[in-house]
Each structure stands twice: as C-alpha cells, then as structure tokens.
C-alpha cells in the first residue's frame, strides 16, 4: 500500500500526461469514422520524430538546462542522411550508423562546450543550433536527395509490409499489423534510456539537476554526467533526423521546421511531467507529452466544422489550443503553489 502511494506521488506528472493522452486520443478515436491499425500507423508516423526530439530535450532538462539545438540537429541529420542513406542494402545500414554517429558527436560537442567552456546550455546550444542549420543548408541548399523507395516504405510501415517488401515473411495476422514506430521507440528506450538511467553517470545527471552543489560535494563526476546527458540528447536528435529521412525519403534544410521542433520539444517535456528546474522526470513522460500534443492536431482533422461547436475545430485555431493545453498541464504541475506557506519557497 505504502509503495503504491509512493509510486503515485513520485510519478504524478507522468500519470497526468498518460491520462491526458488517453482522454484526447479516445475522443479522437470516437470521432474517426473507421478507426483501425492503419490509422495508428499513420499517427505513429507523424509522432515518432517529435517524440525523439522531445527525448533529446529531456536529457538537457534533467541536468537543469535547455537544448535549443535539438531541432536543428534533427534537420542536419536529415540532410546528411539524405546523402549517406541513399543506395540499397548494406550501404543504407552504414548510412544510418553514420547519422547516429553524427548526432552523437554533435551532442558530445555541445556537452564539451557547456562543461569546459562554462557556458550556459541555452546559450551554447543557441549558437551550435545555428551552426547545425548552417551546415544543413550547405549539404542541401535546396530540398532533395532520394532514399530507396522500397526501403523508405518498408521501414516506416508495419511488420507485415516489412515482410512483404523484402519477401522475409508472409502475413503474420494481427501481430503483423503492429506498426514499426512503437517498436523502434521501445528498442531505443530499452537499449539506450534504461541503461543510462540505471548507470552511475545517469544517476549523476539527475543529481546535478536536483542540487549541483550537493552533487559536487558528494563526489559526483559532474562533468562526465553533464557531457553524457548532452551527448545522449544528440543521439536522440540524430535518431529523429534518421526517421524523418526515411519518412520523407529526402532531405530538407527547413529552418522553420527545426525551430518548431525545438519549441515543441520543450512543450513535450513539460507536459510529460519533467520539471524545468531539473532533477526529476524522464523520457517516458516526454513520450506521452508528445502524444498529447499530436493528439490535439489529429483531433482537428476529424471534427467537422459543421458539427456543433465545430467552429473551434478550425485548423487556424490549432496553435491556440496547443498553447491552452500546455498552459493547463503546467498549471496542474504548479498547483503546489497554493499549499506553499513560506512565500520564499515560491522562488526557489
């Protein structure tokens, strides 16, 4: 009983995000004329890159910073990917690995600048973000590049399609209808996030965000944990770029898109229950934060404007409602303010 109470109190933000997603998505499903796995696939396709960029942002937020370069880094990887992932077979695999390496290296560079340059993360990444965008434009002055169509189709689809395309397996029934995006996500979470969170370095990242002084006095390796967090942010942003490349089949140094992804990534982190002060939360919350944001835009597509109150479903109002949801999520998280008895603790 006690452990349940503890679990609930320590994961309130995450549970809130899950609940919000459940409500919004249930509404979406109820409005969708014939909802099925193909719709889930389409939803997943549109959400995965945002989730990954949000996960990248989460890393920076845990150590008490913000990373403004996650969107541009995704774009850079996308442009780079549109070159190195062209071709077929083994060369594609090498291209993907190269993209991951690029993202990781850029994240590592961010970490080093922040730690050894003693520069605030938000400023350091504002600069490196611009650099990443500049490089992306150099690689792809205009949108282009072509990824092997079969490959792009098969790997952004469901298990059945993957099998059909390459003749690996036949219809696997319901199992085959599972989209690949959640599988990618689960793999990344299990192979990258969980080990990080359970490593001494990962624990150190939380310690820094919670109280950097105490962490230092406890002998935590501050530099290592901080660099690791930003490196991992780079890796996640790189994965987002790779997925975008597969999804679009090309590269595009789209500056507005990069900026939008960066801003949304902060929203996904906050909705997911990670405190911007650092030291709490994690990528699982962020995943649901991204799902909440995307569910809102899905809903705008299915509610007909002729319906009662349909006027609020005007696509023009979509940013308005996203902002509203963000505000609600943040306000719920800030409800503790009403219980604060010492006004000084409002500022710390």
């Amino acid at each position: 009983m006690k452990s349940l109470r503890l679990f609930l109190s320590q994961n309130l933000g995450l549970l809130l995000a899950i609940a919000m997603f459940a409500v919004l998505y249930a509404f979406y499903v109820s409005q969708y004329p014939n909802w099925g796995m193909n719709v889930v696939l389409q939803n997943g396709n549109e959400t995965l890159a945002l989730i990954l960029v949000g996960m990248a942002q989460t890393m920076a937020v845990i150590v008490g910073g913000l990373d403004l370069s996650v969107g541009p880094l995704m774009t850079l990887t996308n442009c780079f990917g549109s070159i190195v992932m062209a071709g077929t077979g083994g060369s594609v695999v090498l291209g993907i690995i190269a993209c991951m390496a690029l993202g990781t290296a850029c994240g590592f560079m961010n970490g080093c600048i922040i730690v050894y340059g003693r520069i605030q993360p938000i400023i350091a990444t504002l600069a490196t973000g611009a650099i990443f965008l500049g490089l992306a434009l150099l690689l792809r002055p205009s949108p282009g590049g072509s990824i092997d169509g079969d490959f792009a189709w098969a790997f952004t689809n469901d298990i059945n399609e993957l099998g059909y395309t390459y003749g690996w397996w036949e219809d696997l029934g319901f199992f085959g209808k599972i989209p690949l995006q959640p599988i990618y996500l689960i793999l990344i979470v299990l192979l990258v996030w969980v080990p990080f969170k359970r490593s001494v370095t990962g624990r150190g990242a939380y310690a820094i965000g919670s109280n950097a002084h105490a962490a230092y006095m406890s002998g935590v390796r501050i530099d290592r944990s901080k660099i690791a967090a930003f490196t991992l942010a780079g890796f996640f942003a790189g994965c987002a770029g790779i997925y975008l490349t597969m999804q679009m089949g090309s590269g595009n140094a789209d500056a507005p898109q990069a900026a939008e992804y960066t801003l949304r990534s902060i929203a996904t982190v906050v909705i997911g229950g990670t405190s911007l002060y650092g030291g709490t939360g994690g990528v699982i919350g962020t995943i649901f934060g991204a799902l909440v944001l995307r569910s809102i835009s899905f809903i705008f597509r299915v509610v007909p404007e002729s319906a009662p109150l349909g006027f609020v479903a005007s696509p023009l109002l979509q940013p308005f409602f996203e902002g509203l949801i963000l505000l609600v999520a943040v306000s719920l998280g800030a409800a503790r303010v009403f219980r604060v008895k010492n006004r000084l603790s409002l500022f710390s």
Partner: protein
Amino acid sequence: MPEGATAAQAAYLEMRGISKNYGGVHALSNVDFSARRGSIHAVLGENGAGKSTLIKIVSGVVAPSTGTLHLDGKPVEFRTPLEANAAGVVCIFQELSLMPDLSVADNISITAPPRTKLGLIDGRAQRRRAEELLARVGCEDIDPRERVKNLPLSRRQMVEIAKALGRNPTLLILDEATSALTGTDVEKVYGILHALRKDGLCLLYISHRMHEIEELADTCSVFRNGQHIETFAAGAHSHDDIVQLMIGRDWSNVFPEKPKWDTPPAPALEVENLTWAPTLNNLTLSVGKGEIVGVGGLDGQGQRELLLALFGVLRGVGGTMKIDGRPVKLGSPAEAKQPENGIALIPEDRKTEGLMLPMSVAENITIAALPWLTKGLVIDQSAEADKIREMVERMQIKAGDLDQEVANLSGGNQQKVVIAKWLLTGARIILLNDPTRGIDVGTKQEIYALLRGLAADGASILFYTTDYDELIGCCDRVLILYDGAIVRELTGEALTETNIIASSLNLPSERTSAEAAR
C-alpha cells in the same frame, strides 16, 4: 583492532604550514594541525575562526594556498571531494549534501551504487544497503524509496550521516552535523560516534555546543582568526578558559554599554499568540522603543520563521501583531517596509537573501528604498547618489568603487551593505537574523555599536543570533525559543551563558548549574 594500539599513537591526519587566502582575507594562516586514529577530536572556534576552511581543505573542496597535507604519513593533495573520498576522508557538512529530488537510497549510494552483472545500478541491492545503513543509525522508520525532499530536516540529517557511514571512512568529519537533530537522534549519533572511535576511526567534530563536546571529545583544538591557538586533552581546561581561548580577549569591552531603564519603554512592536503550524506555537512578545531584544535557542526552534512571519513572508500566520498600538496584517515584505510599518529584516544568508550579487554596491544599497527616491516615474539619480554616499560614509563601507559588483566585497562589508540598504528605508523596527555569522571581529564590533546607536535613536530591534556572547553582551532582554514557543525570558543578572544553554535545551536551570559545576 589489534594494530589499532600502535596506529592510534601516530598522527593520522597531519597538516603542516597550511594557509588559505581568499582575496586579501587570511582564512587560515600557517596552521599546523594533527589528529590521530581512535579519537574524537573537537575543533573549536568562533564563527570565522577558520574551522570551515580547515575542513574544506581536508575534504578536497578548496586547495590550500600554501602548506602540505599528510594522511597516514603520506603526503596527499585532494583536488576534488571525490579524491578525498577515495582516500577515506568523508565529511558530513552542516549544509546538507543531499539531492532533494532523488530517493533516500539513491542519495546514500550516489557515487558507488551496487551494480548488476551488466554494470547497471542494482535498485534492489541499493535499497537493501540503504536499509542496513539506516538501521545502523537507528532510523528504520525512513523508507529508502522516499524522496529526500519529503523528509523533515532532522530525518535528512540522519540520512546524511547514513550516507557518510556508507562510504567506509577512516577520517570522518562532522561539521555541525547534529544541529537539526532531535534529542533521541542525538543520543543515537553519540552511540555511533563512540563505536566508530573504538573501531579506530579518526573523527573531527565541529560544534558550537560545549555540552556535546564535553560528552564526546577526547582532544580539543581551538582556532581563532585563522590560527591554531592550542590543542589539549579534553578536561585540561575549564569551560571558561576555553571560551577565553576562543575569543582571545576580554570580551566585556566588545559590546557597547547597555542603557539603564527606569521605566519599561513603550512597546513599538507587540505580537500576541503568533502561530504558524507546525513551527510557531503561540508566541507572545513585545519590543519596546529603543530596546534590543535578543532571540536565542538552538538552531531551528522557529527563530527564523518568527522573523519571517513578522516580515510578512509566511502565509497562514495566526495571532495578532501591533505596531505602535495599531493592529497590522502584513502580506509581503513590500508592505512591511512601508513607512507606516517601518519594518526591516536583515536576513541570515546575505548571499541568497540579502544581496543581488551581480549588481553593484550602489544598486544594492538603494534597492529597498527606491520607491522613495523617485522623481515622477523615474529614479532621481542625484538623490540616489547622495543617499548612497551618505550610507557608505555612515557605515564605513570599504568598497573602492561603488559601481563594482557587491560580490567582490568581503563578508563584513557585504553585511554592511545589507544593513545600509535597510537603514535607508528609515526602518524603526529592525529584525536581524544572525547578522554576524562569518564576519570578522572588527566589523562585528562596529555592528554592535551601530545597533545600540539605532536603539538610542528610538529604533526597536529584535536580534536573533546563535552566538551566546552577543545575546549576553548586546541585548537588553533575551527570549529563548524552544519548539516554536518562548520558554524563558532572561534579563539582567539572569542573562548568563548557563541559563541560556539550560533554557535552550528546555532544562530546569538548577540541573545545568549542577552540570556546569561538575
């Protein structure tokens, strides 16, 4: 420990010719100090005597400017706390070194958690380890999965102790580590420390509480003004001698003379049944015009909250408050400082609550009084400059350039800036929260004289300090707080260190007199 007998004789920790300068301030000058194993070695000294610097050097937080450090006969040089830890030096700091958002178990095993075969943190083993260590300090009631920020301060301090024990120290430093503990916890900690001494650890114990030192220490070292004055076996000096060594002068001259009251002064601030659950319980007090009223007691008995409540910082405060007989209800410091209320609070920590460190000396001096220094909508710059000059002269603030960052000033001058800021508002009721902590003796004396001068001009002063001498020397009356209530008021002849300590511990005064005589 068979080899303990021989090992105990030789010095385990040895410092030779250690000096540390911060800018022009000599925190430690040419200190030789040693401590052996199987001993609890008390380090005594006033605030600012250099104790903290000594500890910081031993535990790798700061590097000495000159001198060498030997551990077990070998020279060592710690660049970080991590390196000191690796050598077996573990420190329990006064300001806790816990990460509030992490669980108790995470905190205890922060740097070297038990791992699984894959090299990942083994949550279950870590929890068991936390349970064992918590049991060792007698805190089975703490759930290792609870986050530290949800624990009360006294429990956090026990977690801090458990965390330190988990690092298998050979040299354990306790820096005011019992300041927030409850009575039963203190007993447990004493038991643990005695056991650790028996196991042959070298323990350095820093505390301001003489009775703790009498109970625990076998060796004492006194520091004063950054110098090592004397080391002696416990019991070799009387209590009074030790105090004399610590302050190094006849302290009766330090404080300005107190006025003689023929009739009690008219009350300027009256508080009745002040309550703020769970910290403040039904406090009733009054401060007269021209009076300095001291607030004493152990740390964390509600003194800080009392001052914050009077300054309008706390929400949900019960009871009534009157200024010059007029009932007031204050909702913020901004209201408290209005001329009709005229309250000022000199906070405890000048770095976080007293000053805007990156702003200039001049800007800090006028920040509270700006509303009264405007001409129309803008700040009247010439009036501001006049006031700043006036204050700098009056307080004798030593700052080469008033436009430099206030962070560059010494502690004493910073505190003068804080006081100047509030004097400029024309405050008539001045609340002080331990204003002389970490300040050099000269500046302390200036502050005492200033307070007495303000009182003589009609200000009412409520003065919380952890320094008994200040309570005795500077205050007309002293209120002792215990568990959020005033347990005793001391005046005149009754205002003695013995009585202050006795009432701070909420003991009947006879018993402590007997103890003191023993």
